[in-house]
């Protein structure tokens, strides 16, 4: 998951730095505002903790071990903004001091793991844990699922970054300059490894730590629990809306634009069709690249139906790869989530406009 230097083109790296930067800024501003001076030692110690936990061997079912990134634990204890900063700092030390993850790819690694990972882990944790009690088993399950999904969404981001490399960065003869596998190979290869091993490690760590804290130190779980809406580290929806809104809009636009961009740019794709999936030889290679787990030979039927949402309205001139189901379901999911986000943002905006025009205090209108 830690992308080394040389896998992504410098321009991709620059875009990823640019993608992570606004999140760093907003996170820093919010954490500063909420914690005042205290954030300096808190982030330092938590980043050090995240780094140490990344070193742990976590036993997985079946006798193997794996490593976690710790974004699940960070998001549950610190909330998403603190987690973004803490994980970014831990990744910086890993990259510089231990060569784990590249320096040019640092922005990409932060975007995938610290930003997308923390936000996903936190959203899933909050969604599933709901208003359950601090000691409720539901919280442990929510944290485990949050960690599991977070690492997989991070892996998907990394896979997309890998996958677009051969399309956009190749020499005159079409030979890839950076990561050589197209989306149709990179996405399943990354996801298979993470849906199984890395995801489990993250899930086990997040769930296990929450279960431990429930018994030993439940106060640490209070920060991100809804009962305590004024707690310093928790984002406050009302006041903080303005700083976060641009991020959500950017995310929604990115999610919608990516599949469309591929569609627009994709006419020359396809040297490596998705037929690779049914080709036993190629499947074996993909399996080797993804920790000896064979890729699925057929796309599950539910996803197939979902994918048709995407492929159905595709015009005939669309490149073949866009009609592939495995890619199609991912792209349509992205498109769908992006659209929902935008709709939600628009509804929120409209609601506030309406409310604002009726309930504005008289003094404000006079001034």
């Amino acid at each position, binding site marked *: 998951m830690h992308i080394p230097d040389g896998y992504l083109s410098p321009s991709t790296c620059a875009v990823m730095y640019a993608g992570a930067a606004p999140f760093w800024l907003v996170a820093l501003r919010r954490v500063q505002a909420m914690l005042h001076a205290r954030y300096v030692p808190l982030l330092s110690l938590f980043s050090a903790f995240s780094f140490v936990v990344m070193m742990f061997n976590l036993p997985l079912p079946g006798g193997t071990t794996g490593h976690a990134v710790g974004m699940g634990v960070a998001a549950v204890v610190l909330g998403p903004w603190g987690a973004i900063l803490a994980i970014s700092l831990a990744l910086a030390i890993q990259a510089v001091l231990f060569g784990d993850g590249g320096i040019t790819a640092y922005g990409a690694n932060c975007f995938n793991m610290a930003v997308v990972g923390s936000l996903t882990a936190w959203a899933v944790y909050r969604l599933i844990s709901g208003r359950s009690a601090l000691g409720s088993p539901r919280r442990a399950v929510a944290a485990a699922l949050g960690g599991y999904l977070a690492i997989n969404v991070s892996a998907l981001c990394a896979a997309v970054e890998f996958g677009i490399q051969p399309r956009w960065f190749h020499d005159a003869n079409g030979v890839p300059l950076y990561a050589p596998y197209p989306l149709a190979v990179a996405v399943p290869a990354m996801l298979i490894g993470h849906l199984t091993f890395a995801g489990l490690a993250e899930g086990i760590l997040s769930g296990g*730590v929450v279960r431990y804290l429930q018994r030993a130190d439940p106060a640490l779980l209070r920060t991100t629990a809804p009962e305590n809406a004024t707690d310093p580290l928790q984002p406050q929806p009302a006041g903080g809306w303005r700083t976060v809104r641009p991020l959500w809009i950017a995310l929604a636009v990115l999610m919608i634009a990516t599949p469309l961009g591929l569609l627009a740019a994709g006419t020359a794709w396809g040297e490596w069709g998705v037929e690779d999936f049914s080709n036993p030889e190629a499947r074996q290679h*993909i399996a080797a690249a993804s920790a000896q787990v064979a890729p699925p030979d057929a796309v599950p039927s539910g996803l197939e139906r979902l994918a048709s949402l995407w492929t159905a309205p595709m015009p005939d001139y669309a490149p073949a790869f866009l009609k592939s189901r495995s890619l199609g379901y991912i792209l349509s999911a992205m498109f769908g989530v992006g659209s929902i986000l935008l709709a939600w943002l628009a509804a929120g905006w409209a609601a506030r406009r309406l409310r604002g025009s009726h309930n504005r205090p008289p003094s404000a209108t006079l001034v």
Partner: protein
Amino acid sequence: MGRQTFAWFTQPPAVGDPRLSKAAGFLERNVVALAKTLDHAARADETARRRGLLQKLDPRAKCVGIFAWILAAAATSRLAVVGTIFALAVALAVLSAVPVRTSLGRVWTGVLVFTGSIALPALFLTPGAPVCRIPLLEWNVTAPGLLAATRLVGRAETTATLAALLVLTTPWTHLLKALRTLRVPKTAVVILGMTHRYLFLLLGLARDYFEARRSRQVGRLDNAQRRHAATATAGVLLGRSLALSDEVFMAMRARGFRGEVHLLQDARFRTRDGLALAAFVAVAALGLL
């Protein structure tokens, strides 16, 4: 994806490694992993304090110069340029008393195992004219596949060597000083410094927790118990980290800290640092021409 480059060897041996059989237990493996991480950092610090060419340079010149080379190695489309930068990096390592065979050798094997295994399928999967055929398996190695795989491995090896060269010739505190003057926000530099400082404390604590658990352990743990041991250790460590952060905050406040950090800047950039930086950048620019 796993881990790579020099961290590769701070990781414990994989399951089934004869040096540490599974029966020796997973607690030991965690103790070993944490101890090795501490050891690795100590060794890097030791090399960084030797007398050598790069050690004499201002850390700012080194940071910017090496970063320029990493960028050049990442941006060029010519393998020859990547190869030249790699050779220059090795030459600098020799001149800087960096143990090439042990320190850099580790980096190289790590990258080869990790990136190599990722690049391998590309040899066969990339469409193009076949160069040779693997007997028995009947797979074709294609020319574009060979080129793409070499590019990936070459770039990864070169950039990893450069990054290693920077840490192996620059003590962490000098790196922090360089960041201060390279317009990285002060707060970020202070937090990075504190993170690094407490990293050692927490690594040591985690190792001790695993050690303590091991000393009380009779017989083998089953898988669920191991998981429990690992996550409980993480939980204890988390509680300790947060308690420490409260105390450290008090210690900072007691000495006048009010949220904004103030640092000493000692900016002494000598002519030779300027020349070295110019040389670094010139090589990078040449490579990109």
